[in-house]
């Protein structure tokens, strides 16, 4: 059924606007919604990662682990490198999205330009973080 803007249909209902969104706005809405999902999802994982990371620091300090002992444990198992790889990925997702909100609300910067800069920032975080993890994992 087609809906004509501002006109009365045969059934007497007058619709002043098409309830369907246009394609451009739909893309904008999907992008915004996925940003929200990714930021909240990454925040949840990040929360767990920070707790595990802090617990690891407390353990290392209490047991007097040297840096060599810590690196040796990173080499010994795939668990810790995998954990920190996940940590890096969620940081690379979460931090640029948070910065995007700050740029928008505090500085009024939005649009494709700032999105491109933040995408580049995400790539730098990801590459640098994974390089560091790979180096520690040996």
């Amino acid at each position, binding site marked *: 059924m087609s809906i004509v803007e501002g006109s009365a249909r045969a*059934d*007497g*209902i007058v*619709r*002043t*606007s098409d*309830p*369907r*969104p246009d394609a451009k*706005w*739909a893309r*904008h*809405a*999907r992008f*915004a*919604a*996925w*940003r*929200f*999902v990714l930021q*909240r999802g990454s925040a949840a994982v990040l929360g767990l990662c920070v707790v595990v990371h802090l617990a690891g620091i407390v353990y290392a300090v209490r047991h007097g682990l040297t840096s060599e002992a810590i690196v040796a444990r990173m080499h010994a198992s795939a668990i810790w490198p995998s954990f920190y790889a996940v940590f890096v990925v969620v940081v690379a997702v979460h931090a640029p999205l948070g910065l995007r909100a700050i740029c*928008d*609300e*505090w500085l009024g910067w*939005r649009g494709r330009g700032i999105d491109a800069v933040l995408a580049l920032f995400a790539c730098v975080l990801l590459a640098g973080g994974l390089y560091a993890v790979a180096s520690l994992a040996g």
Partner: protein
Amino acid sequence: MSGDGSMLPVRIWRGDAGGAFRRYDVPRRASQTVLDVVTFVQRHVDPSLAYRYACRVGMCGSCAMTVNGKARWTCRTHVDAVTAGGALEIAPLNHLPIVRDLVVDMAPFFDKWAKAKGSFVPTATRREGFARVEPASAKRRAIDATIECIGCAVCYASCDVVGWKPDYLGPAALNRAFTLVNDVRDGAGAARLGAVAGDGGCQACHTHQSCTERCPKHLAPTASIAGLKRLVALAAIRGRL
């Protein structure tokens, strides 16, 4: 405090955005409301004072102003309850263009209702029977309170995000969108979720809850916005946005 002959010093905003406060002295009365004070000034001191009101009993939502820094319905606000140090300061609502004195232009507020697709889109014709909405259903119960919004803009004037992000739709428009999304008779749910998912949409809410704290009807727009966030996220994940 009753009509004991004492006077209340009142500072009232005069002019447009470039205006200033002007002081008036108003006789104290028993059970005096802030709207009584403004009305006294207009009728007995300065008839050029512009302000807006209609019902005087908290039904129309047209007399909202900033009273001692907080947005309130002036007809339902007793002077005794808000006078700080015996003084009263009355200004127009925040975040809306000032027309003159205490009157603001509500057009941007209602334009955002339109942007949030705040109009009901029927799925049935007048020739069909009345829709049956089960009162105990989850969708109906979710909007038991939200349907009571009368659009006074107190929440909008109290919202920090509206202040720093002018295209943010605001608590009232989003509350309206949440109400319609949960209305089983409405046919524009997906489009409406799309309308409230953009940069100025529900995700911009910081959950400061000023809207919920200040709503004169004790509604919780923050909860409506949280509901929209969930619905928008689910719609995106399911590919229905």
